[in-house]
């Protein structure tokens, strides 16, 4: 598979001016502005191959959106090289723009006071989509996203979920091969989130599209991405398998058991770290490589009614990465 996105030593610094609150702050800022450099992205390098879905993880302000904006050509990098589909993003050549799309969950590209179908018609002309391709794409998107009932309602009257579906459709009408998705499921309810995920997987499968997405919903990342980037304070601190990351951060699995007879911590402590225990139920944290052996021992020595082995929640793990600075270089 060929490399679709290649980023080497990308940095993006902003100058922002500081203003103290209140009237005197304003007055001071009027005469002598203080500027501060924000290092939004610093020395980031990675490559993404055609057809990959990569999740971009990081707390607010880590530099995820900035990176997506640089990749899609909206921001000029302070330094470094960025190549997407063989183009330098910032040149924003029409041939490049026709191959990419950027969806920002918090922003709106549809014409607010008109039905979404009007925005689609504008995009059809702007992207020079032929009549046949347009009908094909519309049919596919209408089926996958169940757009039928909402197409002719004014955008301002749509619910957030309906609007997001239309946003996705508008962004994908020209069948881009590279998708940059910034919080595509933000604010959506669980069913709608799942729907959007299924749609993205299907789109990726059908068209071999490359997808780079950010999300605060770990379920999105788990469902969609085998590979993740972790970015913190503008620096890329992890690039690799989501599973490997989970193993690295959390070397334990949880064994949850239900017993026929009451148990206490003293019965369990030699099997592993006891996380909780209450009469018939207990949870143990056990090193990954030992889980099956420990489970077998438990079966032999206790009267087990039920036993499950679980990974810790990814949410919890990722949270720990940032609060405990587990990956900081």
């Amino acid at each position, binding site marked *: 598979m060929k490399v679709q996105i290649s980023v080497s030593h990308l940095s993006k610094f902003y100058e922002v001016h500081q203003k103290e609150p209140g009237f005197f702050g304003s007055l001071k800022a009027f005469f002598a502005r203080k500027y501060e450099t924000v290092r939004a992205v610093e020395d980031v390098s990675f490559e993404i191959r055609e057809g990959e879905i990569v999740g971009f993880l990081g707390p*607010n302000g880590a530099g995820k959106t900035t990176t997506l904006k640089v990749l899609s050509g909206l921001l000029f990098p302070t330094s470094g090289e960025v190549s997407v589909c063989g183009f330098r993003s910032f040149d924003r050549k029409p041939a490049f723009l026709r191959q990419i799309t950027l969806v920002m969950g918090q*922003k*709106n590209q549809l014409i607010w006071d008109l039905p979404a179908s009007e*925005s689609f018609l504008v995009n059809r002309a702007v992207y020079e989509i032929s009549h046949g391709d347009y009908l094909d794409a519309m049919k596919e998107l209408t089926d996958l996203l169940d757009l039928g009932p909402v197409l002719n309602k004014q955008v301002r009257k749509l619910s957030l979920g309906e609007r997001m579906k239309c946003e996705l459709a508008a962004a994908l009408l020209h069948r881009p091969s590279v998708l940059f998705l910034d919080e595509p499921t933000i604010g959506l309810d669980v069913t709608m989130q799942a729907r959007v995920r299924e749609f993205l997987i299907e789109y990726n499968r059908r068209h071999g599209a490359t997808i780079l997405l950010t999300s605060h919903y770990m379920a999105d990342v788990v469902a969609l991405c085998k590979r993740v980037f972790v970015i913190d304070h503008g620096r890329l601190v992890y690039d690799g398998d989501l599973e490997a990351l989970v193993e690295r951060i959390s070397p334990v699995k949880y064994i949850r058991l239900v017993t026929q007879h009451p148990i206490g911590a003293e019965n369990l402590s030699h099997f592993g770290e006891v996380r909780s225990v209450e009469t018939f139920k207990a949870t143990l944290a056990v090193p990954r490589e030992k889980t099956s052996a420990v489970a077998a021992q438990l079966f032999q020595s206790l009267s087990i009614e039920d036993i499950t082995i679980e990974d810790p929640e990814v949410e919890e793990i990722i949270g720990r990465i940032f609060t405990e600075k587990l990956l900081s270089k």
Partner: protein
Amino acid sequence: MRKFLAEFRACWNLIIEYRVMVVIWMLTIVLPLIMLAAWLSVAEKGPVGTYDRMTFISYYFAALVVRNMTGMWFIWEMDSEMRLGSLSFRLLKPMDPLLHYFAYACSSKPFRIFILGPASLVALLVFPELKWAVDPLNLLLFVTSLAGSLIILFLMQYTIGLTGFWITRSLSINDAWFFTYSLASGYLVPLDLFPPMVRDLLWILPFRYTMSFPVELLMDRLPLGGILQGIGIQWIWVAAMYLLNRLVWRRGLRRYSAVGA
């Protein structure tokens, strides 16, 4: 062209959505009528320069038509799109945003023609002494001059809007611009009534060609040579404004940092 038409169609649909608002906007262009009332009382004692009462009436009604046909208000939309970051979506499309804003600026014009056309006809029938030259040739030249006016104004406004790349609030510049435009274009006071030196200066600046020139043309105050020369000057200004606009656009893009986290 297909892109422009698609944008135009969408903007036109917005106009239809807001047809009542457009009518209200049309009615709020009252500045010429206020000026007219003032000059009429001045002209009671006799003509001012070459302007008698009927000339003033003809002038300001023509100004009203020209303002409706060339005025544009897209800079407010542009300002909010730049501040809120939705300009980003326009930059991601394989189409120059200039086309969108131009379509937006033009989109209410058919609607305005639809209302102003019959209204002007009625005015001509009721006041046959209205000093408008409405023979086919003159009307054709008038429409041509309106196109030039519209494009000059568009490029001026679009360039001012682009200063938003640097100052995030381009509307304050626009206020200063409107003040200059009102005075220097003949929108408030006919340029013929300025002292000759000022008038000569204003004939060189682009503002005359956005208002006074089409008005003079409609009122048959210009010889054919003057009309053709005026149209020529209009297109020189279009070219100059376009070059300036592209320069500002390229510089501005480099500076643009899309707002929002």
